[in-house]
């Protein structure tokens, strides 16, 4: 026994440190526990956490520009701050190569709609230019290269060049353009050697060779050609693009391209809080475009009202349930749960029937002569309708936690208060109510968080003034397809909920929240 008293780690009977031998003996148990939850863990990871993480990532992801127009973006990035906004012919020439490949892969419209979120008109600009890029005659490049060396016309020449890493380094645009062509050919199931090289590859080759004079590649073919390109006849891409659409000489288009060329952007988040990222920096959106701030505030405000209504309506019921004999309590419980067993859509549609201007409530009021035919109340497609319907739908989420907390408050507390001289009201307010606060807290958190992200009900009965931020998110997901903005709005919503949760924890304490027992 004496060795355990001495300083140093406590040893087990076999001389290993006790901590390690304890860990070893617990490892099997831990492993078994982990095995038990493994299926659920995997399920949640795959179906819940991963999609959410992916969705959140989309709020900053912006690789589409640099993936669709890699060569252009490279040149734009290399531009100094003093460079003209609308670039020179060299960049337009690269843009031609990019756009030609994008059109072949049918990617230019996607990019167009992406950039259209930032600047209207870009979508049609890309669509229009896409059609015309294919028709632009650039055969002279190919012809001139073949004049220098006919080997340029052989696909095998290109395939050998592809294998040389140094060539890749020296002629990046060319190699990219050629491999795009090659991929396309292979995808069609054709033999590359039997296909005709397309003209745009030679535009890329010209761009590469004319950009820097000293290529330092130990290949005669390239060195010979590089010294010849200086005298080449070229196409004026800048004016050609202007002919496609004069917007290509518009500074705004190029500002947008430059702002959104990096692979990650904070633009979506700025949009989500009514700011915008411009070439010159951040700025507040014009007043008529600011909607999200209002929408967030409205969502929070209405959720608060709904939570308040649920407390007011739910508290007495929960109290009754926990203070009546079992049989009555069960009946009440069934009535509370009944809405749970009915489809959400049915309940919401029922409210539509009840509240509309030709609906049950208005008809009854008219029939009772309380209002006249002209004065039918507008109860739906506004905030009132959303609040009424959502309070009804979320009420069980308030009642159940309240009930489970109230059930644990022994009747002897109120009795004790009364025996000490408290009236019914004092006994309730000073003793019963404080003890039921954890239930209110749990119910409020539940209802508030549920309502802040509610979608179906506001969509159906909310009209335009009673919709929530989630309806806007849904719109961006399914209609405008601006998933990045939807993801940014969703992230902000998530952040707000977490923040509220934190605040609540500071004020009430999560330990005080009880869902039962």
């Amino acid at each position, binding site marked *: 026994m004496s060795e355990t008293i001495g300083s140093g780690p406590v040893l087990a009977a076999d001389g290993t440190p006790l901590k390690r031998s304890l860990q070893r003996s617990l490892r099997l148990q831990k492993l078994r526990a982990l095995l038990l939850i493994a299926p659920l863990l995997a399920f949640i990871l795959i179906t819940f956490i991963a999609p959410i993480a992916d969705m959140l990532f989309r709020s900053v992801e912006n690789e589409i520009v640099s993936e669709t127009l890699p060569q252009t973006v490279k040149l734009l990035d290399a531009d100094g701050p003093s460079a003209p906004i609308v670039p020179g012919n060299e960049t337009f020439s690269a843009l031609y190569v990019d756009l030609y490949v994008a059109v072949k892969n049918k990617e230019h419209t996607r990019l167009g709609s992406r950039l259209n979120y930032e600047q209207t008109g870009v979508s049609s600009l890309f669509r229009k230019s896409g059609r015309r890029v294919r028709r632009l005659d650039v055969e002279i490049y190919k012809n001139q290269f073949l004049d220098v060396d006919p080997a340029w016309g052989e696909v095998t020449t290109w395939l050998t060049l592809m294998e040389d890493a140094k060539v890749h380094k020296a002629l990046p645009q060319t190699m990219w353009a050629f491999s795009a062509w090659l991929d396309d050919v292979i995808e069609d199931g054709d033999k590359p050697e039997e296909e005709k090289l397309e003209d745009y590859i030679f535009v890329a080759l010209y761009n590469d060779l004319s950009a820097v004079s000293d290529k330092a590649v130990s290949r005669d073919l390239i060195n010979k050609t590089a010294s010849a390109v200086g005298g080449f006849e070229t196409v004026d891409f800048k004016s050609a693009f202007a002919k496609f659409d004069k917007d290509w000489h518009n500074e705004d288009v190029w500002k947008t391209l430059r702002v959104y060329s990096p692979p990650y952007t904070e633009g979506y988040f700025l949009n989500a809080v009514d700011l915008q990222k411009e070439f010159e920096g951040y700025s507040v959106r014009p007043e008529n475009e600011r909607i999200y701030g209002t929408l967030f505030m409205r969502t929070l405000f209405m959720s608060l009202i709904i939570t308040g209504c649920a407390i007011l309506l739910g508290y007495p019921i929960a109290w009754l349930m926990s203070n009546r004999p079992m049989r009555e309590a069960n009946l009440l419980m069934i009535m509370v749960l009944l809405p749970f067993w009915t489809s959400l859509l049915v309940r919401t549609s029922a409210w539509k029937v009840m509240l509309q201007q030709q609906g049950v409530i208005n008809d009854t009021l008219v029939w009772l002569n309380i209002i006249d035919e002209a004065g039918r109340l507008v109860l739906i497609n506004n905030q009132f309708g959303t609040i009424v319907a959502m309070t009804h739908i979320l009420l069980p989420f308030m009642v159940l936690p309240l009930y489970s907390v109230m059930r644990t408050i022994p009747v002897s507390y109120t009795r004790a208060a009364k*025996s000490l001289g408290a009236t019914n009201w004092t006994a309730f307010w000073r003793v019963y109510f*404080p*003890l039921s606060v954890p239930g209110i807290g749990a119910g409020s958190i539940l209802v508030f968080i549920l309502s802040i992200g509610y979608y179906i009900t506001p969509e159906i009965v909310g009209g335009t003034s009673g919709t929530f931020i989630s309806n806007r998110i849904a719109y961006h997901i399914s209609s405008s397809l601006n998933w990045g903005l939807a993801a940014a709005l969703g992230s902000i919503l998530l952040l707000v909920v977490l923040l509220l949760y934190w605040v609540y924890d500071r004020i009430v304490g999560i330990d005080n929240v009880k869902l039962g027992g």
Partner: protein
Amino acid sequence: MANTAEERAFVEFERVQKSYDGETLVVKDLNLSMPKGEFLTMLGPSGSGKTTCLMMLAGFETATHGDIRLDGKEINNIPPHKRGIGMVFQNYALFPHMTVNENLAFPLEIRKLGKADREAKVRRALEMVQMGEFGARRIAQLSGGQQQRIALARALVFDPSLVLMDEPLGALDKQLREHMQFEIKRIADDLDITVVYVTHDQTEALTMSDRVAVFDDGRIQQLAPPDQLYEEPENSFVAQFIGENNTLEGVVQEIRDGLALVRLDNGEVIDTTPVNVSEVGERTKVSIRPERVEFDKERLGSEAHTLKAEVLEFIYMGDIFRTRLRVAGNEDFIVKTRNAVNQTRLEPGQQIEIGWLPEDCRALDA
């Protein structure tokens, strides 16, 4: 006589009945009157109606029929908070969201006492239960025994004239319970308050009370001081319920000179004191306390009837010996003897003769 008794009565139940479902009576015809300053215990098995009586007195249940009077005033229709009765609940019912001080100040605040008054009273109450340093604690930080003391202090802090206690020691361990019994008794005597105490623990009832009301089946079976209750039970329920008891069954053969001759079912005859048997031929249960049984012939009178007995088991319990015998067909006949010098230790299988004084042997209802 009747008039003075009524004048002195502080708490009075008169023909009180209580039914929850309208079909069965939980309390049947309760009559009880207790003077000021008395410590009265309602003792009985669970479901005997004792707690219901307490709740009716506190005002949490209404009597279905009959009058309850406090200090001469009918209180049937007075709400609990106006009765001014202190109460200690079974699980203390201390408010968990308040500190000890706040719990104690609660009744004083409601009575709109000034801050200084309040603090003085709270301090005095805490000192009374020897919990002076615990005022700032939360209830959850107190042990069961400490909570019990605080509950007691809270029930007394507003100087009620009557205090009700509903099994206040039920949740404590044995040692603490015994200690608290004396503590409560001491405080009740010091303050000269009237206490109605409900328990199912007979030791508690016997050690603390001035009088004990034994409840069964919604009625008071006997209302008497503890010694009388133990030594002179009025019926076989009380005899069985209070303390340990040996029962022999038989038929009354003869009643004369304040003695009843009972022929037991095996034919043997014994002398008994008739309590509630009056006719010859009536069936009876004869009750003898284990410590009043003698097997030393010299200490019994010469004409005393004796019974044959066989020793079945001898249990050494430290301060006493407990011997189980077979007597007149009853195999659970217990004899207790003090562990004194020269005390006989019986052996299992031994045949002995036992006897007792007729006044210790009571012929009760069958």
